[in-house]
């Protein structure tokens, strides 16, 4: 059911119903030593308030803010897992004397605590980065500090489980703090464009934390769900890295950043040409084939509907219009697909990178809307470039390239794009929405 866009929605619904049944089942049917669950009022109150809040938040968020919502909700799950560990720890410590503490339970509690806390803290930072409130922050030796933090946390956890020291509670809360700090520092230096990979990784972390809860209560539903997500999330993370042709290690350790790394050693700069609206309109209207390359700029300008209008107008004039979608265009895989689908663009018109690359040589005009790094030739030619090795859209094969951007400022990778200075390329400056509206008006006049 999940492999087809049309039926995936039903798959989601089925999963939701299953979750609902599991929750109700637990509330009314769970029994431990013959004792059923109590505190129904508290439970239902929390469920109700959470449902209302969750639904409101999820319904009101703009399409382009989806990845950060996913991250935020992921963090909530991580926090939930960590809190479970805290409560169970307190229960364990207060109900038995130090000598008889169950070490297996302690181990599971510590694992759930650490993984949940790291996921929570990291997810909140990722959320902040994607909505722009947190900037990239890296300092020298950061990665050493991160490793030290992690080792320290694990060491304390091991100490607690193996040695059962008197100051158990002190160590426990120290571990909580360290795990949270580690989660923050883990995500803080990673660049915004790499966030989707990080979120996918944190997603699988929370899955594992949920599985820990499953082990603790010997609960099949939690175990199943948790491990499923842990495994699936890990695979998805790896797939995303492959699409960028970067290793996971590279994503986590390297940071793109305007200041931290300077661009490659290739010659950049030179003169660029600007194209007027009327010339752009003419060359596009009389073309046989136009390919549109959407990027983050299109999303920011919320110009997807105008783009669709332009597509329809051109097609009415007999121009074949398609879209070339790079796997990491925008801020998440499938970002452009979602954006264009929202504008009712038929998904048969969306070409994946390999297909698009075959068609560029037959294309008269490529219109690049707010995309930058995904069409940067340095990825092929400049080994010192931070994006070297990433497969790109080979737009230079087409006859004309028109680039729409707000200015000449670099994109997320913070590097110059030689494409802009090439002879076949001309620049059309302006906000994507305004530029498209003006272009559309010109095309209609022809």
């Amino acid at each position, binding site marked *: 059911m*999940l*492999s087809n866009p*049309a039926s*995936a*929605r039903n798959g*989601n619904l089925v*999963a939701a119903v299953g*979750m609902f049944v599991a*929750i109700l089942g*637990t509330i009314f049917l769970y029994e*431990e030593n013959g004792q059923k*669950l109590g*505190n*129904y009022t*508290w*439970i239902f109150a*929390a*469920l109700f*308030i*959470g449902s209302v809040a969750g*639904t409101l*938040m999820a*319904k009101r968020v703009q399409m382009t803010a*989806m990845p950060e919502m*996913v991250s935020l*909700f992921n963090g*909530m*799950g991580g926090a*939930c897992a960590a*809190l479970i560990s805290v*409560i*169970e720890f*307190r229960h364990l410590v207060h109900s038995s004397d130090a000598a008889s503490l169950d070490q297996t339970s302690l181990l599971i509690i510590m694992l759930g605590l650490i993984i949940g806390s790291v996921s929570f803290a990291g997810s909140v930072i990722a959320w902040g980065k994607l909505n722009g409130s947190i900037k990239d922050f890296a300092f020298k030796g950061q990665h050493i500090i991160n490793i030290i933090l992690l080792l320290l946390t694990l060491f304390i956890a091991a100490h607690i489980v193996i040695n059962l020291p008197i100051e158990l509670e002190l160590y426990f809360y120290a571990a909580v703090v360290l795990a949270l700090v580690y989660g923050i520092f883990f995500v803080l230096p990673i660049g915004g464009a790499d966030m*989707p990979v990080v979120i996918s990784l944190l*997603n*699988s972390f*929370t899955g594992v*934390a*949920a599985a820990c*809860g499953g082990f*603790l209560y010997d*609960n099949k*539903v939690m175990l199943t*769900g*948790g491990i*499923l*997500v*842990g*495994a*699936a*999330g890990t*695979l*998805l993370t790896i*797939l*995303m890295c492959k699409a960028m042709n970067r290793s996971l290690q590279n994503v986590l350790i390297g940071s793109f950043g305007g200041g931290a790394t300077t661009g490659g050693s290739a010659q950049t700069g030179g003169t660029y040409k600007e194209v007027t609206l009327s010339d752009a309109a003419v060359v596009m209207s009389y073309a046989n084939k136009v390919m549109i390359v959407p990027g983050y700029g299109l999303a920011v300008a919320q110009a997807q509907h105008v783009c669709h209008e332009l597509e329809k107008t051109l097609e009415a004039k007999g121009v074949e219009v398609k879209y070339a979608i790079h796997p990491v265009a925008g801020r998440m895989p*499938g970002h452009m*697909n*979602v954006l264009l*689908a929202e504008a009712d663009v*038929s998904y048969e018109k969306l070409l994946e990178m390999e297909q698009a690359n075959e068609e560029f040589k037959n294309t008269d005009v490529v219109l690049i809307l707010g995309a930058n790094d995904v069409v940067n030739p340095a990825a092929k030619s400049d080994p010192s470039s931070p994006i070297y090795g990433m497969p790109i859209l080979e737009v230079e094969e087409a006859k004309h390239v028109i680039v729409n951007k707000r200015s000449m400022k670099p994109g997320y990778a913070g590097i110059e794009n030689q494409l802009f200075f090439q002879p076949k390329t001309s620049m059309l400056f302006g906000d994507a929405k305004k530029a498209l509206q003006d272009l559309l008006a010109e095309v209609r006049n022809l």
Partner: protein
Amino acid sequence: MVILMIFVGIEVIGRVPSVLHTPLMSGANAIHGVVIIGAIIVMGKAEEGNLIALILGFLAVFLGTLNVVGGFVVTDRMLEMFKKKK
């Protein structure tokens, strides 16, 4: 059991086209909200007088619910985008 689940997880992802990767991530996110069951258990077992456990438990269930409900609604909105056009 663990191995089976890992296998299933990998199989499921392997069949999903890359255009669905983000809704998939969102769906997986909702599913790990199953951690809420642990929160419900922990809350349900707390003794009447133990205020700290009740408050923490309440918070845990609340956060878990956000994960589950928010996750499924967001996934649904993403998948709604793929409806066949008229």
